[in-house]
């Protein structure tokens, strides 16, 4: 664990302690207000209404609003605490709001002011005990004040300052945990509860006009990484830096402007294009929503250009067609055109060809490669198909249970893997040649759950090279040869075994 993680851990734990107090106080305020409301204030309200001195609205405002606000305060403090427990610094910052705290304080204090100020209608009607009871909602101000005081420490949970780089997208120590519903007892035991470690400390960079592949089996977290790059899911901690700016900490309005520069192509073109919109509307929607065109004619020009780029020709014939009139490959090309029309700098492609027939896969891939060539657009491609990624990406990272285990140029990673998991993956991929050596199963058992991943190296329960240390110490991802990184204590041994086990020299083709 890095120094940085340790510092974050200590800081969040301190914040969590104070949040626990705030939470308990909010609970107390809530209970007290509710008790007052039920046993005392209903009667008071009836008296007041009976003497017609105050309106129903005032009664509501005075007595119900504090109860509701205290309840919300309780919920907010609880959620912040849960975020602190799972070291979710991004979530903490998002929940942290001065205006909200000030509003709770104002509401909590309003009632006592009304009943304690001599001359107010309530002051006249109440005796001292009644006034004290009615003032109980003021308790809600204390957790509100605490939350404001906590702003300082929360604000300090900042990401490290990174050296500027020329990368288009840089993902730094990205973590995304999804909370499994926490039970009440877990909340009291100050446990964060079960969590799905979807992405656990992933870092990588994508350069300009580079195609970067994230490969792994289902559940390895590759799609979650892609989603955080669009902020479709907020990361738990870490940073996603697009052209030097951390998009996880950007204002919503600011991010909206940047977002046109990051576009996404989804896996299934049968679901990702709206069946009720003609092609023109599908492609032009992004332009319209972002006010990037001033007239329909301009939109038409951009749309036809984008369609031509994805080889939907002649584009004019297709503008008014609906998706059901297109084949799967054409639909996916429309989806790519929809991304291209906004002139992006980064395209996120989530398994762009896995739903398509083999004979049309190549055309989609060639289109993506052509776009990169012509426009210098970078691509983050998520895939499970190692053979395909080898032909398409410049650099590949293999993910296993939320972590990158190996990365490097795909031809090298696939032809001569360092990590035992990569080895197992490549050995399991069938090749279109009946004479080729049969596929092998080199990893025993099944993928572990992300809720309680194995200790140490996550692959150790399935690994043929396992040693005692693998269960204890998590191997770091380190550069072992130029451009190649691997996270394995015994990668040398594993690699040697791989070289020895080869039935035939890598590269001898299937054409025999």
């Amino acid at each position, binding site marked *: 664990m890095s120094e940085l993680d340790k510092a974050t851990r200590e800081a969040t734990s301190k914040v969590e302690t104070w949040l626990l107090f705030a939470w308990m106080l909010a609970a107390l305020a809530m209970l007290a207000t509710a008790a007052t409301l039920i046993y005392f204030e209903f009667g008071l309200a009836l008296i007041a209404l009976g003497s017609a001195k105050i309106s129903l609205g005032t009664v509501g405002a005075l007595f119900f609003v504090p109860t509701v606000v205290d309840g919300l305060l309780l919920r907010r403090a609880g959620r912040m605490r849960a975020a602190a427990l799972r070291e979710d610094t991004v979530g903490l910052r998002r929940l942290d709001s001065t205006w909200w705290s000030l509003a709770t304080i104002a509401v909590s204090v309003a009632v006592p002011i009304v009943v304690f100020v001599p001359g107010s209608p309530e002051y006249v009607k109440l005796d001292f005990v009644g006034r004290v009871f009615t003032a109980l909602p003021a308790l809600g101000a204390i957790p509100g004040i605490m939350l404001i005081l906590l702003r300082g420490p929360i604000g300090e949970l900042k990401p490290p300052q990174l050296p500027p780089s020329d990368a288009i997208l840089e993902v730094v120590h990205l973590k995304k945990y999804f909370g499994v519903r926490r039970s009440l007892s877990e909340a009291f035991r100050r446990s964060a509860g079960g969590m799905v470690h979807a992405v656990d400390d992933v870092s990588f960079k994508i350069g300009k006009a580079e195609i970067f592949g994230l490969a792994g089996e289902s559940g390895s977290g590759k799609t979650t990484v892609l989603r955080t790059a669009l902020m479709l899911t907020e990361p738990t901690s870490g940073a996603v830096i697009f052209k030097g700016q951390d998009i996880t900490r950007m204002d919503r309005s600011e991010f909206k402007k940047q977002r046109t520069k990051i576009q996404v192509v989804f896996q299934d073109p049968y679901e990702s294009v709206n069946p009720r919109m003609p092609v023109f509307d599908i492609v032009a929607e992004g332009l319209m929503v972002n006010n990037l065109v001033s007239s329909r004619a301009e939109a038409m020009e951009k749309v036809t250009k984008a369609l031509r780029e994805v080889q939907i020709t002649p584009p004019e014939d297709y503008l008014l067609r609906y998706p059901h009139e297109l084949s799967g*490959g054409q639909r996916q090309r429309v989806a790519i055109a929809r991304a291209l029309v906004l002139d992006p700098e980064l395209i996120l492609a989530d398994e762009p060809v896995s739903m398509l027939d083999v004979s049309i896969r190549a055309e989609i891939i060639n289109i993506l490669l052509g776009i990169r060539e012509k426009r210098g657009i970078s691509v983050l491609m998520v895939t499970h198909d190692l053979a395909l990624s080898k032909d398409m990406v410049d650099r590949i990272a293999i993910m296993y249970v939320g972590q990158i285990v190996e990365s490097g140029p795909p031809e090298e990673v696939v032809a001569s893997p360092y990590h035992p998991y990569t080895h197992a993956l490549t050995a399991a991929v069938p090749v279109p040649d009946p004479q080729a050596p049969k596929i092998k199963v080199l990893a025993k058992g099944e993928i572990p759950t992300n809720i309680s991943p194995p200790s140490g190296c996550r692959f150790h329960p399935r690994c043929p090279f396992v040693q005692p240390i693998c269960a204890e110490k998590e191997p770091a991802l380190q550069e072992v040869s130029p451009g190649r990184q691997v996270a394995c204590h015994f990668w040398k041994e594993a690699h040697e075994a791989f070289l020895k086990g080869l039935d035939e020299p890598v590269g001898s*083709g299937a054409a025999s």
Partner: protein
Amino acid sequence: MYFNTKDGDVKAVDGVGFEIAEREILGIVGESGCGKSSLASTILKLLPHNAKLVEGKILLEGKDLVPLSDAEMRSKIRWTKISLVPQGAMNALNPVFRVGDQISEAITLHTDTSRSAAKVRTGQLLKLVGVDPSRASHYPHEFSGGMKQRAMIAMSLALNPRLLIADEPTTALDVIVQAGIIRLLMSIRDEFGTAIILISHDLALVAQMSDKTAIMYAGEFVEYGSSSDVYGTPLHPYTIGLVGAFADIRKPKEPLTSIPGSPPNLITPPEGCRFNPRCPYAADLCRSKEPPIEEASPGHLVACHFWKDIKAEKKSQEERETDRQEERGTGDARRGVGQ
């Protein structure tokens, strides 16, 4: 086999013929909509009411299945002689029954086995496919995708069928799990001599498993022969296109080729050869006359007017290829030393 629809007959399977012997694995490869799953249901006569078997025979051990009634199919053929591992087997298990009970049900319904004996048999079957027999009392949601697929295979083996039809048995599974399932199917073949028809869109998968391969396009077989013939010397332009479009993990980085266009509508398939609108070799002959099925070499059938030209062209290309490969081989050796 045609489907009756209000737009006309969908010629889902049209003039297909093959044979499969004991212990043999036949792979049927094709794109979605080419009729490969329809072919499977036709063999089992599990057809919807709008389907009609226009002509042809399905001979099982010399006996034609076509005239058999539904009841006869159910009692004498399905499960006992031919069983099916359906597409999307992951969803084929009933989620509200225990896995073991579902397997025993298949046994007790088709034979006179007592429930307890069926239970014992279920345990054996699960063990055979590599699932812990104690998991028989679990529900499908407690199984992983690979285990569900194994359970489905166990079920299909319950009555020792002679022929197993596996329809896309590994789609939606991860590669390592897929490799496990393939090994399992191969070992079943070796152990029991079961013949297997493997239906898949994955060219590589079929290459790994099958002895014979049939390439299906728009309801017809375009090429059929031993796997080494079909993959080694593909003669139909569609097969060549498919092989070119398929990424091979062992080969160095190379651009993939695609087949232009998309599969035809099967209600009104193109005149002549059904592949002609997408074919790089198409000539006028292809647009007017359906190509006959010809034997290119013993057991290697191809339905293309120009297979001879393709073969000749391929031969000259291959000579160039070998030269190139020798160069590449030395390059690899050098790289190997570098590491």
